[in-house]
């Protein structure tokens, strides 16, 4: 045990004496959560922008003139109107006056508007039907310009169920992404870097056991990961009022299962190469697709039906889903046990394979 603790002590010192590692491991994830949380969180006031040909309709509907927009060769007038009601919340409408077709195109290309309103009385609404924001702008701008209310407005009720905000969905995803990154870079890349500096070769020429070295690397990342998750949860609680509904023990268990699985992948990916650039490419080629397809930022159920079911068995999906179930729904063993089992299988398989092809020299 002395050897294991000494090795852990060495890895610990290497991390806490490196300000840049501390920043990436501990503080960056919290900053990322705050940044993304604010970016995607429900805003107090939503801005809806659109373009019309003439300002008289806006004036008639109670819009107030703003300072004209003069940017990169585009000079257009802007009008603003703020509304507030129980169905749509606080809205700020900004109407751009695009008297020429060329102005319309520039406004669209620069993403300033996604909806064009043409005609003076019988309005025609032009927008990309596949664009959800444009569709939303249409549904909100039309009643305002045509001075009508949607027939079913009185059936709209504001939904304020705890744990249903996007930020609630996002935080468990960010935690699982951090776990994966911490393992793959902290263990996988560390192995490659140490191999390139011939340190692995020197270590195995001693009575140190190989498993002691690998375990010490994973264990110290597990400990730093705990610190990282604690900071993340604390920041999320104070900044976004994010609360862990389920059991902390279940959360820790999935966290440990994730480390086991990702630790295995880290050893597998770091098992051969001694070139840090190749290693970096290998790790990126594993992590980048995972971040996109495993439900960190949006549900993998948005993918076509034929691909969504297998995606839930990917290691990052398993961890993300499990953490969400625990954090948001308070779900415990029933839905978690099979996920832990699959994570365990991933861990064992990658550890066996990684160990088989591992190059210490």
């Amino acid at each position: 045990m002395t050897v294991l603790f000494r090795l852990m002590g060495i890895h610990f010192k290497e991390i806490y004496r490196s300000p840049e590692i501390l920043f990436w491991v501990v503080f960056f994830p919290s900053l990322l959560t705050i940044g993304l949380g604010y970016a995607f969180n429900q805003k107090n006031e939503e801005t809806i922008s659109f373009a019309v040909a003439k300002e008289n309709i806006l004036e008639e509907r109670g819009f107030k003139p703003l300072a004209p927009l003069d940017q990169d060769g585009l000079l257009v007038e802007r009008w603003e109107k703020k509304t507030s009601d129980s169905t749509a919340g606080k809205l700020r409408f900004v109407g751009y006056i695009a008297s020429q077709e060329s102005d319309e195109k520039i406004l669209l290309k620069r993403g300033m508007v996604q909806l064009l309103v043409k005609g003076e009385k019988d309005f025609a609404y032009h927008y990309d039907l596949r664009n959800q924001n444009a569709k939303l702008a249409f549904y909100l701008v039309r009643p305002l310009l045509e001075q009508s209310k949607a027939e079913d407005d009185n059936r709209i009720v504001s939904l304020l169920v705890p744990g249903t905000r996007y930020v609630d969905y996002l935080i468990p995803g960010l935690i699982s992404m951090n776990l994966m990154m911490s393992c793959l870079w902290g263990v996988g890349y560390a192995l490659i870097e140490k191999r390139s500096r011939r340190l692995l070769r020197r270590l195995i020429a001693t009575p140190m056991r190989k498993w002691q070295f690998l375990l010490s690397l994973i264990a110290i990342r597990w400990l730093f990961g705990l610190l990282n998750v604690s900071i993340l949860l604390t920041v999320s609680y104070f900044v976004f009022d994010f609360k862990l509904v389920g059991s902390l023990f279940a959360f820790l268990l999935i966290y440990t299962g994730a480390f086991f699985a990702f630790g295995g992948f880290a050893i597998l990916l770091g098992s051969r190469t001694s070139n840090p650039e190749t290693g970096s490419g290998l790790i990126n080629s594993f992590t980048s697709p995972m971040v996109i397809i495993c439900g960190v930022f949006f549900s993998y159920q948005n993918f076509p039906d034929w691909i969504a079911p297998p995606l839930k068995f990917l290691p990052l999906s398993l961890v993300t889903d499990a953490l969400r179930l625990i954090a948001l729904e308070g779900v415990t063993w029933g839905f978690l046990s099979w996920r832990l089992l699959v994570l365990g299988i991933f861990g064992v398989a990658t550890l066996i394979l990684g160990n088989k092809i591992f190059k210490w020299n």
Partner: protein
Amino acid sequence: MLLSIKNIHKTFKTVKALRGVSLDLQRGEFVALLGPNGAGKTTLVEIIEGLQKPDSGDVHINGMTWKKNFKDIQKILGLSLQETFFFDRCTVFEVLRLFASFFKVRDEVVEKILTRIGMQDKRNAYSMTLSGGQRQRLALGIALLNDPELLILDEPTTGLDPKARREIWDILQELKDAGNTTLLLTTHYMEEAEVLCERIVLLDQGHILKDQSLESLLLESGHKDLNEIFLNMTGRRLSDDSVV
């Protein structure tokens, strides 16, 4: 006999690194394995160190083999590899203490080693701040932690300036004077072999060309130094960097 190597062959893809090398070392001998770059020196010592397996041939260390007595051999072996880096942000003392734990060596021994390699003043310096010579001294200190019966140093002074090289030689000379250690040293510096070792093994293209004492080698060949002997035998120089 402490080390016995019999008919070692090793091939890497199409390159024959060792072609039937045999070598014996008696206890207390200081032997230099001398040869130009690519002669097969590192391959041979790594096979002796158990870091590589030979295609054929046997290695016996104190009558033991790597296959049967892995742990026992590690206990009596001290080694320093070519160009090793340690944990960047750990101090000299911490690195020594870590390696000491592998051999179950106490902290008092670590203190003695620090003094022996002349790095007491650098005990709290991060290994990333050490010069090449200091890093080699640290590597030598690690090799000495378990008070090895057989010490194998692979080009311990390559790339060092003359002063740093002298400092390593002084430590090795003290070891030689103490008489408890057997040393196998690879080098392509003729002077290093002449200063430290009484027996010279000349290796070239995987073959042992000569294996005898320095005096008899010089006497027999009629040349005044090893470089001339090697030049006469192979038509090539030992090193382009042989002047200390």
